[in-house]
């Protein structure tokens, strides 16, 4: 052990360490999948998406807003946001964890059935192509009552 002077062999040893741990991490992650702290970080690596969707609230005048812009939700039956209600051809792109967060928000912000105003929970679906947004549509998931926050 010494200080300061850096032999070529020592430098190569450090390079070997850096390349070795990087190579081993990548090979392990792609062999294993995901097990902390190994991951292939494939969060947005799905197949090519040509559509997108987002669950939003639609008031009586047709204005679209975020679910979180409303509170005191009352729906009968209580909606599931797995979008099975929106049966379209072809299927469209969703980010399930966002819908789960919306479900959680709705559950935590329930209200009485006779309060607020009529609000539809809808999925807005966009169809994309090379030039931009080809078309967009909405699909009603549930008719509810809620009040603006």
């Amino acid at each position, binding site marked *: 052990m010494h200080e300061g002077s850096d032999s070529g062999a020592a430098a190569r040893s450090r390079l070997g360490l850096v390349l070795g741990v990087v190579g*081993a991490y990548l090979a392990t992650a792609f062999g294993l999948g995901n097990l*902390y702290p190994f991951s292939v*970080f494939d969060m947005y690596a799905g197949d090519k*998406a040509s559509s997108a969707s987002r669950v939003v609230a639609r008031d009586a005048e047709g204005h679209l807003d*975020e679910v979180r812009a409303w509170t005191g939700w009352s729906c009968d039956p209580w909606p599931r946001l797995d979008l099975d209600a929106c049966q379209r051809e072809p299927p469209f792109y969703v980010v399930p964890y966002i819908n789960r967060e919306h479900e959680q928000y709705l559950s935590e912000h329930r209200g009485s059935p006779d309060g607020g105003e009529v609000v539809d929970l809808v999925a807005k679906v966009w169809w994309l192509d090379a030039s931009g947004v080809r078309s967009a549509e909405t699909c009603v998931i549930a008719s509810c009552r809620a009040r603006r926050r």
Partner: protein
Amino acid sequence: MITSPWSGASRTGLRAVIALVVSFDAAVLGSLLAKASLGATSLAGRPALLTWLPGKTWAVTLVTGGTVVAALLFARGRRQMLWCGLALVGLAWSSESLTSAMGNPYRNQFAAGVVLLGWLLGAVHARACGARSDREREVHADLAAAALLGATYVAALTSKLLASVDGWFDGTSLRAVQLAQRPIGGVAEWFAASPRLATALTVLTLATQASGLVYGLGVRARALCGTVLIGFHVGVYALLGVPYLENTVLLAAFSYPWPRLVRRLRGLPPIDDVEAVMPPLAPRGQLVAVAAAVTVVALARWGPVPRVYTGAAHAPGEGRHAARPDALVKSVHEWGPLRVGSTFAGWRLAELRTEARGATLDLVRADRHLSLRVEARGSSGRAGPFDVRSASVTHGATDLPFAEFAGAGAAVARAIDDASPDGSAHLDAWWSAAR
């Protein structure tokens, strides 16, 4: 020459930042774990070790507290390898327990674990090279930790390119992700209508993530690539609203010569760029290191790992296509090799619905119900727990133990594979025949 911006200086500040990020993650994971319970979103095939912790406040408090204490002792500097290893085990247990309960890994918390793993590997390497003290060992620990932090971006890039090269290069996927992630109206829809901008940002994203490959290769590489990667995280937050705070903080800590900057601001004399230089690993040590790496990689690839958990079901689910096409959903009696009334490992096929991308099977046994979905392999970009060479077979949300229906899933997959002699399931042909 492979050196660090911290060369010649005490790395106490660097360890303190790592400990801070580890403690923050441990606290976040602990608070979520204490409230978590195993339910419909829980992952199938999870090891028993991971089902024990969720919801047990006292146990979660112990694990979280232990992780934080280990991180703080690591920051203090003595016995770094021990405390680093314990903090890593604590974070890993908490993270995987939460993932198994919630169905989603929290990837922004992987950076802390990656850095701890790198620090540990680097310290082991330095020790094998003859380093006697923690101060000497952390020279290599710093290098390996930074290199692994960079490797996570290479993994993300590789995953994107393996999944869909054209989808990522033309920017459509980025526009779709942005629309789905951001609040309705405003910037999101404007961006969706700007394919050229999306393509430019996509190419920039891929190039930025590629820079992770050289991140650990020296002081300049760290400063340059670190700045680019921090900019990338700021951009992702602005565009998608997805914060990667831990990565950003760790990149900032590893990328810049903080000890020198601080001394300059305080008007103190500069630090000598003198640092312990370990001799290279002896040939025997090199052999052991290579053998260890090959063994770990081989075990990861072929070892007795619960792959239903680490592979298929562990995938986060983003990008899944939703909804069955109404016009195409049709209840049928027969679809390819599957027939209503047949049994699969004791489960009777009660209903069979064909869809554009495959089929859904409703199976019953006594009063228990199970839903399986069959798709062409790769059509969803995700692997399933019962995948065969020709098709992906996944199960719907269920409270049933995985072992109870694993045989049925495997039997269905086998039937499909047997009916696909060329290795390609002719789902479209089966679907057409079923009409």
